[in-house]
C-alpha cells in the first residue's frame, strides 16, 4: 500500500451516511425544488417522427397564448451559438455536428424542434399544442446490423452511410491460434437497448444576469467543472463568468454527465429573456428523448483446445449509438470497453477484433453504469459456458484453465491491460464456497428428476475504472478526466471543510471522503465536512462517473490533508516545544510519541494559526489551507470479483426465480463497508433488470413502444433477491489509500451470473441464450413451448 503514517480510525467503519438526515426528512434540495423570483419555465416540442424533414413550423398561435414569453425554433435559435462538433480528429471516426434544436431534419422520435418559455409549466405545455409543424417523413433506420453492413438511408446528410466509426486491432497471432485449435466455437450475443432511469429525471435552471453579464446554471448533473468549461467555451464567455451549481441529485447512472442539445437552448432562452429559465424533464421525455444504452452486438469466436484452453478470440462488435453522440463523448467512446472486456482476466494471448459504431433513428447512447460491461461480460462468460457445454466440461473447469492467477501477475492481457494485484481466482473460490457450488450439481440432478429446473451461473470479472483521455476517446472539454482536486481548510475552531470536485449523487462521498480526511488529519470524523457541487469552489476535476471517485477524490483529500497535517505539526511543535518528529495527531490532539501525556488540542493549533503570527515558527504563513491535485496513477487499480447465482426456471410459466445470490468483490481498501455493499447490491439490481425485465422497444418506424413505467419495467422489491455480499480485502498498491472501485462491478457479475444460471437450468432443452431480456415469453419460446416471435 502507498506510504502513509496515519492510523485508520474512521476508514473501514460502518459509518451511517451524514448526507442521509436531510434526505429522510424531506429537506433535500433537488433541482425542481429550487424556485426563483421571475423564474420562467421551458418545455420542448418534440418530433413524433423518427426520421423526417421539417418543412415548416408555425409558432404564431403559441406565441399569442397569454403567459407565453417566447417560442423559438432551430432556425431562430441555433445561429446564436456554434454547433457542438463531435468526434473531430479522432482516428476512425466521422465527425458530427449537434445543434440546440433540430433544424431542417429530425433524426429520432423526441428530437426537439421548438422551445417554449412561459410563466408556468402548464402554460408552456399548452403552447406546445398550438405549434404546427409539417414534416416530410423519410425512411427509418432502426437495425444496427443493417447499418453495419453500410446499408440504409444516411441519417446525417453529410455521410454516405450510417457507419460512424470503424476500428480494428489485434494482439498475438490469431491465425496460429486457429491452426492449433481443436474446435472453433462461436455465438452472437445481442444485448437489447436499455436506459438509465434515475428516479429523478434531468433538469436545470439557467440564469443569465444581464447586469453582471454572467451565466449561472443549476443542474442535476454528475459533474460540475466540465459543464462550466464546456458552457464557457460554447457561449464564448470567460470561465469566471459561468458558474455551475449542482444541488442534490436523484441518481444519474451515467445519464447526467454530458451536454444535451436542449440544455443549450435553455441557456439561450435565459440569455434572451434575462430571467431564470427552468426546464424539468418529464418521465416520458426521459424514457424516449434523453439517452439510452447497451444496444450492443457481439459476434465472437473462440479457438479452443479440447481440454478447455482458449487459444484465441475473434470478435466483431457493433455499437448502436443512436442518432447522435453526446458531447464531450465521441461516437466510439464506449465500444473500446466492450473490446477490452472480452478477454478481460483470462489468458487469451491471441485476439483480433473489429469495432463498428453505427447510427440509427433512436436516442443517443450515454454511458450507463459500466458502459459496455454488460454485453462484454455476458459475451465472455456466456461463451465460456457454451465452450464448456460443447466440450462436455464443467463451466468452472474452463474458467480455472484460463483465469489469470497470482503467479501469472503482472499479466499483460491481449486487451492491453496489465493485471496485477488482481484476485480473480481467490474471489471466485470464495463465491463458489459460499454458495456451495460443488454440492449444487447433485441437488440439480435430484430436482430435474422431479421436473424442476435449477441452474447455477458464474460471472467472474475484472473491472477497469476511471474513463479518462488516456483510455478512451473524449472530446476537448473533459481534459481533466484523469485528475481530481481538493482544497482542505481548517477553520479557527478546528472544524475542517474540504472542497472537492467529485460530484456524488447517491454514492455517499460526503461520508466516505470525510472518513478518509479525518484519518489523514487525525481529527474526529464529526469535525470534517465535505463540500461539492459549485464550480466557484476551489477544486477542479471531472466529477463522479466511471468508478473513479474513491480513487481520485480520495487521493486528492489525502494529499491536501497530508499537507495540512504537516503544517499543523510544525505549529504544534513550536507551541509545545517538542520536535516535529516526536509528534503525531490523533483524535483531535497533537501528542508526543515519547511522552503521550504532553498533548495539545487541534483547536489550539487552529487558534494559533489564525491569530498572532508571533505564535508561529519563523517563516511559516498563517492560516490552514491546502489545495492539492491527484492524478490517475499510471498503473491502474483494477477491482475484480465473482458473482454466483442459483435460479429456478418454471418451464410452464417461463418465470425465472433467483433462489440464491452471492457476490464476492475485491474493491481494494474499503472505506465504509455499508456504503460499498449498498453500491454492489444496487448494481446487481441494475444488471438483473437488464437480464430479466428492461427493454426499450422500438418498432420498424422508430416509434418507442415503452414510453411509460408500465411498459419499461424496472425491478421492484419483489424482483430482487437477497444478495449476499463478501468483500475481499486486497488494497491496491498503485493508488493513494489503497482504494479501488465498487460501483460498476455488479453489472459485470450479475449479468453473466444470472444468464448463465438460466442457461444451465435449461440445459436439458439444449438452448443458447443470445438475446435479452429473459421475460417469460422469451423463455417459453426458447424451450419450444410457444412459437418463436416473428
Amino acid at each position, binding site marked *: 500500500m502507498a506510504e502513509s503514517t496515519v492510523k485508520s480510525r474512521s476508514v473501514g467503519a460502518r459509518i*451511517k*451516511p451524514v*448526507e*442521509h*438526515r436531510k*434526505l*429522510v*426528512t*424531506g*429537506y*433535500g*434540495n*433537488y433541482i*425542481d*425544488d429550487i*424556485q426563483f423570483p421571475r423564474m420562467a419555465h421551458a418545455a420542448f416540442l418534440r418530433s413524433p417522427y423518427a426520421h423526417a424533414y421539417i418543412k415548416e413550423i408555425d409558432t404564431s398561435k403559441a406565441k399569442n397564448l*397569454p*403567459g407565453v414569453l417566447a417560442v423559438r425554433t432551430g432556425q431562430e435559435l441555433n445561429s446564436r451559438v456554434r454547433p457542438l462538433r463531435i468526434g473531430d480528429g479522432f482516428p476512425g471516426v466521422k465527425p458530427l455536428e449537434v445543434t440546440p434544436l433540430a433544424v431542417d431534419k429530425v433524426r429520432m422520435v423526441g428530437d426537439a424542434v421548438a422551445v417554449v418559455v412561459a410563466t408556468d409549466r*402548464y*402554460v408552456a405545455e399548452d403552447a406546445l399544442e398550438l405549434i404546427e409543424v409539417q414534416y416530410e417523413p423519410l425512411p427509418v433506420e432502426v437495425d444496427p446490423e443493417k447499418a453495419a453492413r453500410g446499408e440504409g438511408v444516411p441519417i446525417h446528410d453529410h455521410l454516405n452511410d450510417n457507419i460512424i466509426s470503424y476500428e480494428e486491432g489485434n494482439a498475438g497471432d490469431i491465425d496460429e491460434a486457429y491452426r492449433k485449435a481443436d474446435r472453433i466455437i462461436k455465438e452472437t450475443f445481442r444485448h437489447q437497448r436499455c436506459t438509465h*432511469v*434515475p*428516479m*429523478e*429525471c434531468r433538469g436545470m435552471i439557467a440564469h443569465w444576469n444581464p447586469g453582471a453579464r454572467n451565466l449561472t446554471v443549476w443542474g442535476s448533473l454528475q459533474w460540475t467543472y466540465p459543464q462550466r468549461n464546456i458552457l464557457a467555451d460554447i457561449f464564448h464567455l470567460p470561465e469566471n463568468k459561468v458558474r455551475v451549481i449542482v444541488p*442534490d*441529485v*436523484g*441518481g444519474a*447512472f451515467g445519464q447526467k454527465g454530458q451536454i444535451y442539445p436542449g440544455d443549450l437552448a435553455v441557456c439561450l432562452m435565459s440569455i434572451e429573456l434575462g430571467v431564470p429559465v427552468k426546464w424539468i424533464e*418529464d*418521465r416520458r421525455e426521459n424514457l424516449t428523448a434523453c439517452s439510452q444504452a447497451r444496444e450492443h452486438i457481439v459476434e465472437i469466436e473462440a479457438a479452443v483446445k479440447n481440454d478447455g484452453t482458449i487459444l484465441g478470440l475473434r470478435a466483431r462488435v457493433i455499437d448502436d449509438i443512436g442518432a447522435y453522440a453526446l458531447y464531450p463523448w465521441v461516437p466510439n467512446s464506449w465500444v473500446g470497453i466492450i473490446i477490452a472486456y472480452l478477454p478481460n482476466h483470462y489468458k487469451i494471448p491471441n485476439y483480433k477484433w473489429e469495432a463498428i459504431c453505427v447510427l440509427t433513428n433512436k436516442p443517443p447512447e450515454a454511458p450507463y453504469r459500466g458502459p459496455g460491461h454488460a454485453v462484454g461480460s455476458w459475451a465472455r462468460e456466456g461463451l465460456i459456458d457454451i465452450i464448456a457445454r460443447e466440450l462436455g466440461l464443467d463451466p468452472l473447469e474452463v474458467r480455472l484453465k484460463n483465469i489469470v492467477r497470482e503467479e501469472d501477475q503482472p499479466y499483460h492481457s491481449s486487451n492491453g491491460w496489465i493485471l496485477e494485484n488482481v484476485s480473480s481466482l481467490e474471489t471466485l473460490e470464495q463465491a463458489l464456497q459460499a454458495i456451495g457450488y460443488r454440492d449444487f450439481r447433485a441437488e440439480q440432478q435430484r430436482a430435474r428428476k422431479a421436473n424442476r429446473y435449477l441452474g447455477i451461473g458464474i460471472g467472474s470479472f475484472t473491472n477497469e475504472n476511471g474513463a479518462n483521455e488516456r483510455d478512451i476517446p473524449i472530446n476537448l472539454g473533459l481534459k481533466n478526466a484523469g485528475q481530481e482536486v481538493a482544497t482542505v481548510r481548517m477553520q479557527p475552531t478546528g472544524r475542517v471543510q474540504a472542497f472537492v470536485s467529485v460530484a456524488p*449523487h*447517491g*454514492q*455517499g462521498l460526503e461520508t466516505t471522503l470525510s472518513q478518509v480526511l479525518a484519518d489523514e488529519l487525525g481529527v474526529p470524523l464529526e469535525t470534517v465536512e465535505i463540500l461539492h457541487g459549485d464550480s466557484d469552489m476551489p477544486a477542479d476535476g471531472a466529477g463522479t462517473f466511471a468508478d473513479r471517485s474513491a480513487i481520485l477524490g480520495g487521493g486528492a483529500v489525502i494529499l491536501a490533508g497530508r499537507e495540512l497535517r504537516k503544517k499543523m505539526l510544525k505549529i504544534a511543535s513550536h507551541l509545545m516545544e517538542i520536535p516535529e518528529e516526536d509528534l503525531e495527531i490523533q483524535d483531535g490532539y497533537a501528542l508526543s510519541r515519547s511522552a503521550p501525556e504532553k498533548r495539545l488540542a487541534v483547536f489550539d493549533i487552529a487558534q494559533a494559526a489564525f491569530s498572532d503570527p508571533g505564535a508561529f515558527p519563523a517563516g511559516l504563513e498563517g492560516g490552514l489551507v491546502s489545495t492539492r491535485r491527484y492524478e490517475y496513477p499510471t498503473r491502474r487499480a483494477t477491482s475484480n470479483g465473482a458473482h454466483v447465482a442459483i435460479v429456478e426456471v418454471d418451464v410452464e410459466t417461463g418465470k425465472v426465480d433467483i433462489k440464491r445470490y452471492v457476490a464476492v468483490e475485491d474493491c481494494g481498501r474499503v472505506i465504509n463497508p*455499508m*456504503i460499498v455493499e*449498498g*453500491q454492489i*447490491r*444496487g*448494481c*446487481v*439490481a*441494475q444488471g438483473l433488470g437488464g437480464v430479466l425485465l428492461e427493454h426499450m422497444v422500438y418498432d420498424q418506424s422508430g416509434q418507442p413502444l415503452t414510453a*411509460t*413505467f*408500465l411498459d419499461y419495467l*424496472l*425491478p*421492484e*422489491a*419483489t424482483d*430482487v433477491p*437477497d*444478495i449476499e455480499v463478501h468483500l475481499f480485502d486486497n488494497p491496491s498498491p498503485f493508488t493513494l489509500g489503497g482504494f479501488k472501485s465498487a460501483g460498476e462491478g455488479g453489472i459485470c457479475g450479475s449479468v453473466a451470473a444470472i444468464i448463465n444460471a438460466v442457461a444451465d437450468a435449461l440445459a436439458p432443452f439444449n438452448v443458447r441464450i443470445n438475446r435479452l431480456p429473459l421475460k417469460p415469453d422469451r423463455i417459453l419460446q426458447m424451450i419450444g413451448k410457444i412459437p418463436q416471435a416473428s
Partner: protein
Amino acid sequence: MAERRALRMTVNGTEYEGLVEPRKSLADFLRIDLGFTGTHLGCEHGVCGACTILFNGAAVRSCLLFAVQADGAEIMTVEGLATGEQLHPIQEAFWENHGLQCGFCTPGFIMSIYAFLRDNPNPSDKEIRVGLSGNLCRCTGYHDIVSSVKAAITKLESTGG
C-alpha cells in the same frame, strides 16, 4: 386558462388556503404553492410512488390527484413525520440502515411504509417485499430498504409505535 378555485386543506397539522386552477395536481400544489418539496415527482403517471403522501390517512400518489380534490382533506407529507428534532422511527431506521442512496425515492417509500406498518405492524418478509413493490428505487436494490423496514418494526414496537 380556467377559472381558479379556492381550496383549504390541512397539511402536517397546519391549515392552508389556496387558489388554484382545477387542473393543477395535488403534488404541484404541495410542492410549488406550499413549498413542501419533500414530496417528489418521479414519473407523474402513478407508477414510481415517489410522490406518495397520506390523504386522510391513506397512502396515495399525489401526482394522480388534482389539488381541488383535496379541498377539506387532511394531508401528511414526509416533512410532517419528525417531531421537532426527533426523527420518526422509520426515518431513523432508513438512516441507520442505509435504506437510501440518492434519496429521491425515499420520501415516497417512507410514507408508504408508514401506512403499511400502521395497517400491518408485524409483516412477514414476503409481505414486506410486496408492501414495498409499489415504490421504485433505482439505487439500492431494495436490500437495505427491507432491512430498514425490519429495523423500523423493532423501533415502533419498543416505542409503542
